[in-house]
């Protein structure tokens, strides 16, 4: 028999150990690949979305009349790179955009990013302009003329001007924030997978310690055994990583459809990048992680040399923890913030099992009851021996706490944002040619509406807040609302002057959103200068209202404040018809405006649909974190079971000494539940801290805005129950071993008195 055969024969005798290690590598790879793949695909999708809806410039006529094909011809003759963009509303909702691929050719720069309408025009949402023109005969349509960013105002012929062109909401920062959180999740998952693989591998090594000692006694050098172990783990990783990657991609594909739908909801276009992406990155990453996790022992002598004694090492780790905590408060750079978070996690991971072991040792020294003393000593042994899976579980729990809190905050923010923006039951677009003032008079005269309904008019446009000497000016969205009534007066206000809504109605000031107030350091009572075109207004700030994470700056004013030259971007009526039917209202408006059709949006249906779509996205994040938690729990369960098996003899001794199996099992339950409970308890502060870092540090540093932070004690309770279940499961598996006939411990360590 050769040396490798002798060495690997261990797994022939213990195939379950090999299976456990292989399963852990496959599952860990699956998990990380899933997260990585989702993050990559989400990033690609968002980039695609961004490029599709990025703000560009268009040419408009200075006399205000809509552009026509004649304008396009004139501009092309003047040598401008112009492309027609014909947007047609579809009867069942949504839109189709007709573009001219020939005219779009001049938009393409060599080596530049491909235009969203590049490639095949498949109707999602881009079609050839001839097809859109056909549709436009039956449906409402709007022609725009996009002009290349290379052109400036001076290039235009007289009678034309450049104006911004935007086709979607500016949600880039929200998306980036979501991706950044997914990235943080991916790094944590990688750390957890490394811990899990290492814990199973070390367990296998511990079981083979006697064999290695025997080989050494037979004259085989340690180095040769170590080299064979490297080959062994490389072979195993090579075999297990590929199925893990395949499973991870399969998992990501299943969960990714939810994200795709969410993107579609956000951008009104099917834009999820779907499958694709490289196999190489997960393959190389996982091979590296497995090798480092399993072979880190070779680095240990160097590390020990640097660290010095045990006490010095403990103090050093504590210092790292304190430094990490301090850095997260003070640093203003994202990279340093991530380093600080890593420092805290590493230190917490090293300290947590030690803390449990030390507390258990301390308790045992003060226990008068000898059973309790024994139990606490056993707990200390377990905490030391199961350190790695315990830390993995602690990290997973902390991550779940943070992600759950974050997602729930996102969810409630989104719900409140929807409720705020969709306060009225219906939303009626004011046609371009229509006079909104006529509609206001008509609405005010309806007794049914006055008695039970609510309505207001919204005028949207842009304004500018001039900057200081060294500051740039800020473009803000303007919402002019009137009459100011219960549809808005119920909004929560962070800060307000007395009677803010009445004063807004009287045109005595302006309200600003939270993000703008934060960025510009605006407070209630202060006066802000607002430029509507060339006209400047000094308006006192009446209140600051929450924007629920919308990153754009906003101001809310009464329409009477707007100057005549204000460029209205869009006008609408928000209507809750009360006892009247919406049909009665729209029929009346059609009569007033002398139009045949009106665009009416059912806000309740939109709210329901939007909530459903976002729920799926949140489900994705929750699913990934829950999977991580389950994997960590299984690892602890598996390790706990195997390790408890090595201690089974001592629980059998209790039975030999006369305790009933039930009493011995009760001791076992108390021990395993104490262990899993202790780690859940230590995960709690780490999870709350991580939530704080994500909400109050990472988001503001990365994006300049943040969501409100909330903690959810119900999750704490859920984790407590989960930890109890893990403890009970270990005890259950172990108690089955108490039923088997007495078997003396077989390893040399146990025969020499057993670990304590």
């Amino acid at each position, binding site marked *: 028999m050769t040396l490798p055969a002798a060495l690997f024969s261990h797994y022939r005798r213990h195939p379950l150990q090999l299976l456990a290690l292989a399963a852990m590598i496959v599952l860990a790879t699956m998990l990380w690949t899933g997260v990585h793949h989702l993050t990559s695909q989400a990033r690609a999708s968002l980039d695609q979305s961004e490029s599709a809806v990025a703000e560009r410039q268009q040419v408009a006529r200075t006399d205000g009349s809509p552009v026509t094909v004649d304008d396009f011809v004139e501009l092309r003759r003047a040598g401008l790179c112009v492309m027609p963009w014909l947007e047609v509303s579809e009867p069942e909702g949504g839109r189709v955009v007709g573009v001219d691929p020939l005219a779009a050719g001049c938009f393409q720069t060599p080596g530049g990013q491909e235009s969203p309408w590049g490639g095949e025009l498949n109707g999602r949402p881009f079609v050839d302009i001839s097809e859109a023109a056909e549709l436009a005969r039956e449906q409402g349509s709007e022609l725009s003329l996009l002009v290349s960013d290379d052109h400036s105002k001076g290039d235009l012929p007289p009678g034309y001007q450049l104006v911004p062109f935007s086709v979607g909401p500016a949600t880039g920062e929200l998306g980036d924030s979501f991706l950044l959180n997914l990235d943080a999740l991916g790094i944590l998952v990688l750390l957890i997978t490394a811990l899990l693989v290492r814990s199973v591998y070390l367990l296998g090594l511990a079981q083979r310690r006697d064999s290695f000692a025997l080989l050494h006694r037979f004259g085989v050098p340690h180095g040769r055994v170590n080299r064979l172990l490297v080959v062994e783990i490389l072979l195993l990783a090579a075999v297990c990583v590929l199925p893990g990657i395949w499973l991870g991609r399969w998992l990501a594909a299943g969960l990714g459809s939810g994200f795709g739908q969410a993107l579609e909801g956000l951008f009104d276009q099917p834009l999820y990048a779907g499958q694709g992406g490289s196999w190489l990155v997960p393959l190389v990453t996982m091979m590296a992680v497995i090798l480092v996790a399993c072979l880190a022992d070779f680095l240990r002598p160097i590390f020990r040399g640097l660290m010095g004694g045990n006490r010095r090492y403990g103090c050093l780790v504590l210092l790292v923890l304190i430094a990490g905590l301090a850095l997260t408060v003070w640093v203003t750079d994202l990279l340093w913030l991530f380093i600080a978070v890593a420092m805290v996690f590493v230190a917490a991971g090293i300290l947590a099992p030690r803390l449990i072991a030390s507390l258990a040792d301390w308790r045992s020294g003060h226990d008068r009851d000898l059973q309790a003393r024994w139990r606490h000593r056993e707990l200390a042994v377990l905490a030391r021996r199961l350190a790695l899976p315990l830390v993995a579980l602690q990290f997973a729990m902390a991550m779940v706490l943070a992600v759950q809190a974050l997602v729930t905050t996102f969810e409630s923010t989104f719900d409140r944002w929807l409720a705020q923006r969709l306060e009225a039951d219906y939303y009626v677009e004011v046609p371009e040619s229509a006079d909104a003032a006529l509609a206001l008079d008509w609405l005010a005269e309806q007794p049914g509406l006055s008695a039970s309904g609510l309505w207001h008019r919204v005028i949207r446009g842009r304004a500018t807040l001039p900057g200081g000497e060294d500051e740039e000016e800020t473009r803000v969205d303007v919402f002019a609302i009137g009459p100011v009534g219960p549809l808005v007066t119920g909004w929560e206000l962070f800060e307000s002057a007395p009677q803010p809504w009445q004063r807004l109605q009287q045109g005595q000031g302006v309200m600003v959103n939270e993000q703008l107030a934060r960025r510009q350091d605006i407070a209630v009572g202060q006066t802000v200068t607002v430029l509507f075109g060339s006209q400047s207004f000094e308006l006192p700030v009446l209140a600051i209202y929450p924007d629920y994470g919308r990153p754009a700056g906003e101001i809310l004013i009464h329409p009477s404040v707007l100057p005549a030259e204000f460029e209205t971007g869009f006008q609408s009526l928000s209507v809750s018809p009360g006892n009247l039917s919406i049909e009665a209202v729209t029929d009346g408006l059609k009569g007033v405006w002398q139009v045949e059709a009106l665009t009416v949006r059912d806000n309740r249906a939109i709210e329901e649909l939007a909530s459903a779509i976002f729920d799926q996205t949140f489900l994705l994040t929750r699913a990934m974190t829950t999977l991580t938690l389950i994997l960590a729990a299984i690892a602890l369960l598996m390790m706990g079971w195997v390790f408890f098996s090595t201690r089974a003899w001592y629980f059998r*001794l209790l039975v030999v000494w*006369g*305790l009933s199996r039930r009493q011995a099992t009760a001791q076992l339950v108390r021990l395993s539940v104490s262990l899993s409970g202790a780690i859940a308890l230590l995960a709690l502060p780490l999870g709350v801290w991580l939530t704080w870092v994500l909400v109050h540090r990472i988001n503001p540093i990365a994006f300049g805005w943040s969501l409100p932070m909330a903690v959810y004690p119900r999750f704490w309770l859920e984790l407590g129950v989960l930890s109890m279940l893990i403890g009970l499961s270990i005890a259950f598996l172990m108690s089955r071993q108490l039923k088997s006939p007495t078997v003396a411990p077989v390893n040399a360590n146990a*025969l020499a*008195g057993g670990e304590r």
Partner: protein
Amino acid sequence: MVDSLLSARGLNKQFRSGDEPVPVLTDFSLQLGAGESLALTGRSGSGKSTLLNILCGLEKPDSGTVQVLGETFDARSTEAASKADARWGGLRRQQIGVVFQEANLMPALSLLDNVRFRARLAGQSEDDCRDWLERLGIGELADRFPDQVSGGQRQRASLAMVFAMKPALILADEPTGSLDRHTAEAVIGQLFELQARHDCGLILATHDPELATRCSQHLDLGHLPQT
């Protein structure tokens, strides 16, 4: 013949190796009185450990009856297993001391705490636990943990645990099997001395024929079970 402390009648026990039954004990009987000692000898696998396990209720025979310290256990009785386990548990806790070849101590407790733990379970005073360690010559090691002392010292601590519970019957399964001859003699000498002084019964499973001659009775299970 002294009063019977333990009697076993018609014990049968077989294990299975694959589909094949492997008989270990066939219609086996024995009797032991207070203050008596019985040596069980035989080759490895002859059933010594299985018999000791049956005699203290850690394993159940396929058939037969064990009477010990006034309690009767019939393998074919309709008594609920949990009730029988509880009665056996009571006996092992207070009256039957069991010593194995190795690992008789809880590794997480000091030698003294191990002895006190065992005495407490048996309902005996913990006051003389240190005395027992001293009588066995390891008093100065009382606060050490099992992995900090030698194998012989651990076995002496095991004896201290057994005597601290003041048992009526001691079952020892090759208690000196892993010790050197000198240490083994010292440990076994102390075992016999204390057994005689406290007038308790002793059943000793051993490979050592010389040791067997020191017991008042000797039973050779001899053969390997027939397959």
